[in-house]
């Protein structure tokens, strides 16, 4: 048991292969796109809004489509007040503070992995990234749930609590509501993919080294 534990620890203590490190460096690149493009886009289309109302959630801010003739975020809040929904305000999104912080932390972890370069460091990053991803998804769903269910009791139009879609298109009252990931999310997916690929390459190389360093006799 102790031998297996030791072997396990030894395996992951191996250095990251050069290929894995290269992939790790590549994983940094998508981060810029994660901030440049929205993470998620929502649109609201109806007969009287044939040109849909659009709202984008970025990693660090909220943005509605804004033209000379229409400020979409204000318009969405204007319409939502009839059903008692809380106004969507950037100040209500703590995410815009911790998301950049977390992504920054990942950059530091990647840097650390490049410097100290052990397979276990990459495992840490991947596990944390998965956790980050799952938490973000839950958080997004929770926010949508709250907006749709915490409705003012004295709203002029009483509607049953609803959850706007996290993915896909749904009809809510007279609106077709669409919700889809955008460039920023794809960047983060790419980053996840590169991290996983880096881990796969590191583990494969590590196995090759590990096996070559230990004579077959000891394995028996």
């Amino acid at each position, binding site marked *: 048991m102790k031998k297996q534990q030791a072997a396990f620890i030894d395996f992951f203590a191996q250095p990251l292969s050069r290929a894995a490190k290269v992939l790790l460096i590549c994983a940094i690149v998508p981060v810029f796109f994660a901030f440049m493009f929205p993470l998620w886009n929502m649109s609201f289309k109806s007969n009287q809004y044939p040109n849909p109302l659009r709202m984008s959630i970025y990693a660090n801010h909220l943005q509605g489509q804004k033209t000379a003739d229409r400020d979409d975020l*204000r318009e969405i809040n*204007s319409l939502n007040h009839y059903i008692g929904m809380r106004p969507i305000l950037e100040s209500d999104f703590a995410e815009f503070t911790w998301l950049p912080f977390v992504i920054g932390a990942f950059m530091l972890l990647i840097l650390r992995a490049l410097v100290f370069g052990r397979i276990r460091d990459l495992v840490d990053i991947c596990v944390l990234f998965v956790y980050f991803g799952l938490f973000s998804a839950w958080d997004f769903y929770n926010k949508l749930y709250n907006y749709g269910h915490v409705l003012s009791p004295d709203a002029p139009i009483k509607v049953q609590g609803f959850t706007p879609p996290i993915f896909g298109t749904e009809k809510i009252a007279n609106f077709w509501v669409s919700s889809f990931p955008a460039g920023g999310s794809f960047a983060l997916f790419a980053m996840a993919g590169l991290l996983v690929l880096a881990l796969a390459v590191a583990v494969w190389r590590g196995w090759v080294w590990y096996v070559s360093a230990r004579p077959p006799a000891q394995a028996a």
Partner: protein
Amino acid sequence: MSNHSNRSWLLHPLSGWVAFAVLLVAVYIFSCGPRPGVETRRGGGAATGGAETGSAASAALATYVNPGDLDEYYLFYSGGHSGQIYVAGLPSMRHISTIPVFAPYSATGYGFDDATKKMLGGYTWGDCHHPSLSKTNGEYDGRWLFINENANNRIARVDLRDFKTKQIIGPIPNLSGNHGSAFVTANTECVLYASRFSRPLGHAYASIDEYKTKYKGVVGAVNVDPNSGEMSYGFQIVTPPYDWDLGSTGKGPSADWAFWTCYNSEEGTGQLEKTASQNDRDYVIAVNWKLAEQATSEGKATDVGGIKQLDPAQVPGLAYLIPAPKSPHGVDVTPDGTMFVVSGKLEAVTTVFSYEKMVAAIQAKNFTGTEGGMPVLNYDSVKDKEVQIGNGPLHTQYDDKGYAYTSLFVDSAIAKWDLKTGTVLDTIPVTYNIGHLLVPGGDSSKPYGKWVIALNKLSHGQHLNVGPSQPECSQLIDITGDKMKLLYDAFTEPEPHYAQACPASLLHPIEVYPQAENKDPNAIWDVKDAGVARNGTKVDVKMVAVRSTFTPTSIEVNKGDTVSIHVTNIETTTDELHGLGIIEYNVNVVIDPGETKTVTFVADKSGVFPYYCTNFCSALHQEMQGYLLVK
């Protein structure tokens, strides 16, 4: 021989003739003329061959604009004595909106809020005839639309950025019946005006017997600030008491000149239809407006009735008179500025005058006399050609292919003729009795062509019967082919005279006022800032209008207070207008998104007076209300 059996009458010799007669009558009734008791609807007019299915379908296609698509051109009609401007689209000819100018218009609250009330200056109506788009290098530039006002001697400027009337200048001193207006010079340096009903200057009194000596006409212009469009008094010239009718500004070589026609050079009074129509010729006045401006700034003008006025006798080279056919109604400078066309409405002749020849005649001093201090040029020395055009010719417009179109009031038709040869190529009847006509861009140096719009005076029988008070008829006619083709009859409110049209791409109006542009000191942008402030008997209310609430929802004042409500519509979305109407206080203002309006009134009635949103805004528009409590 008579036979008494049942069918004996069939064999009677006379029966054949009777049968034949019956057949003839039957053929007559069923082949031509109306059946008794059945109303016939005339088709497209005898000359155009009636509305056959094929031509009706192609005309419909030429005017149909698919739902969701937009018209290609703006059409701005003058509203005549309605005092407003009507905006329609081409080719659909649909009325799109009304721009209130000289009369209150509760639909948009024009004339009810403090700013527009002040602009109207106490007048509740106006008579506007001739709209004019602003120009740069003789071409429309889409900045402003000017329009004259005949009854109260004013000119208005509409800003085409938001389609609102921004300034009304006047009553202009000494001007009387501002009809020959509001024509714009080639670079919008100034806007013309002229007196239609001569009267004593400076509001002096003189009896009608002294018409020839004490009554005077004036022609002049207001200057336009090139940046803001703000109008200010420019030159004015005193003339004998002729009735100045219509004007036209020069372009290209003639850009420094302005032209007007007059009738009643007889200086008649009483029954003008007789006394003003005795002479065979009246006059065109050619004014060097550049020189007029210069002379005025050089101090050659004297103050008359509050405005600087020039006497042509004192300023050589200022103005010249050119004889024109009897009681001319229109003068129209050609797009290249080399000719001006004048039609005598009581003659069947249109005269083409040459600007070059006019300049030569002036140089050579080819004068036949002097009137009112102005040299009268020799008619034949300025005339280029005369066109035998038809009965009652009035106005001429030009297309982009070298053709001219003249309206014929008496013939109730339009004549198309070649400017170079003077040959009439086509005529088309119109319903009925056309006044002005418009080829889009036809009074600029770059006509757009495509159509001529007939602005007719009588519409009877062309529309559903709506009783004695009838609308006006304007007709869209295609001019792209050799022959003119009637496409559509449109009916408007009373009473367009002239119009202007430009491509839709020339204008870029806004639909929401940006907050940054709202410089009103009483504008507020948050419901938190709304409230009532009292200063003695003056109460100022700052109000916010946004779907679907007015804040504050109640206002308490004392009887006798002067109440000013400053309401801001804080919406940022197009078409989200709110109206504020106060029951029994005769108040209605409509506030556009991003706009602030102030309405001031004395709370002279005590009691409780609801106020509510008058312009439909939202699902809960009915609930958008409040109470004015007057103790």
